[in-house]
């Protein structure tokens, strides 16, 4: 059983319900245990790095937005970015989330040979 | 706060106009996506001003479900283009 995964699910449950009564804790535990579990090769370090990336990306997104407002970015380009090897689907999803969340870059496609196609805007 | 709502309404007119004008289906999808987010944020603002919890819950539900519906619509449109 992957304890980290269970902890993450419990956190989401409590954020969703915002209720710490005993009945709600019991219901949350039941839901968390019943949801299907998939074995992955992600380590604690992988998760921590992704969570750190998400926290960094929030102020970064605002900085990029202000840059886009004050300096017009009118050129577009498509680049390829390499995925780190041996990633489980949840981590790939979070990677795509972090890249797309910052306004200058959007993931267009995730290719099976291990590349993201990233669309970005640039200053001319 | 009323001024804020007025300004929001004024901004909301832009995507509504684009959605009514544009012939390309993807530009229309963009406009609809923008309308969905803006209206649900307006619902949230109204709910918080009136301190009415029920309206706020409706706003949050629209915020998540409306976007999910647009996602499904985008996938269906892509399939139709592939046919």
């Amino acid at each position, binding site marked *: 059983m992957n304890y980290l995964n269970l902890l993450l699910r419990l956190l989401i449950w409590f*954020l*969703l319900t*915002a209720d710490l009564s005993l009945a709600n804790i019991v219901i949350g535990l039941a839901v968390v245990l019943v949801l299907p579990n998939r074995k992955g090769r992600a380590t604690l370090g992988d998760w921590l790095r992704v969570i750190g990336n998400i926290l960094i990306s929030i102020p970064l*997104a*605002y900085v990029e*937005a202000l840059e*886009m*407002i004050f300096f017009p*970015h009118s050129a*577009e380009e498509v680049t390829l970015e390499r995925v780190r090897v041996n990633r489980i689907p949840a981590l790939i999803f979070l990677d*795509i*989330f972090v890249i*797309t*969340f910052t*306004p200058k870059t*959007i*993931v*267009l*496609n995730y290719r099976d040979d291990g590349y993201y196609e990233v*669309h970005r*805007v640039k200053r001319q | 706060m009323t001024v*804020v709502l007025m*300004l*929001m309404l004024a*901004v909301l007119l*832009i*995507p509504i*106009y*684009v959605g009514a004008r544009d012939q*390309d289906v*993807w*530009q229309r*999808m*963009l*406009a609809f*996506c*923008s309308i969905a*987010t*803006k209206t649900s*944020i307006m619902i*949230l*603002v109204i*709910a*918080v001003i009136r*301190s009415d919890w029920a309206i*706020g*819950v409706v*706003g*949050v539900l629209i*915020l*998540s479900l409306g*976007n*999910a519906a*647009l*996602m499904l619509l*985008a*996938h269906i449109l*892509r399939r139709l*283009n*592939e046919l």
Partner: protein
Amino acid sequence: MKEFISYTLISLGLVFWLWGTLPLLGKRSVLFKLHSLSVSDTLGSMAITVGLLVHFPADWSLLFLALISLAIWNTILGYVLAFCSRGGQKDG
């Protein structure tokens, strides 16, 4: 002080909204408009929600949920729209 912070955040959000929505009127590609919409609809709306959170802390759980669903759903919708619109153009 609290009022000042909250109104600053809300006006910042409104500026983002206006700036990001105006390119919809132009004749750029769908992807370019998607970039500016992610400024307005995700970041601008998040700024407005945080402003409301500072102003009315009693409704924190509702606003927090709105913040999370804004960030996740709008971002994923941007990815899905980019992916689908390009797939359509390639075949069409």
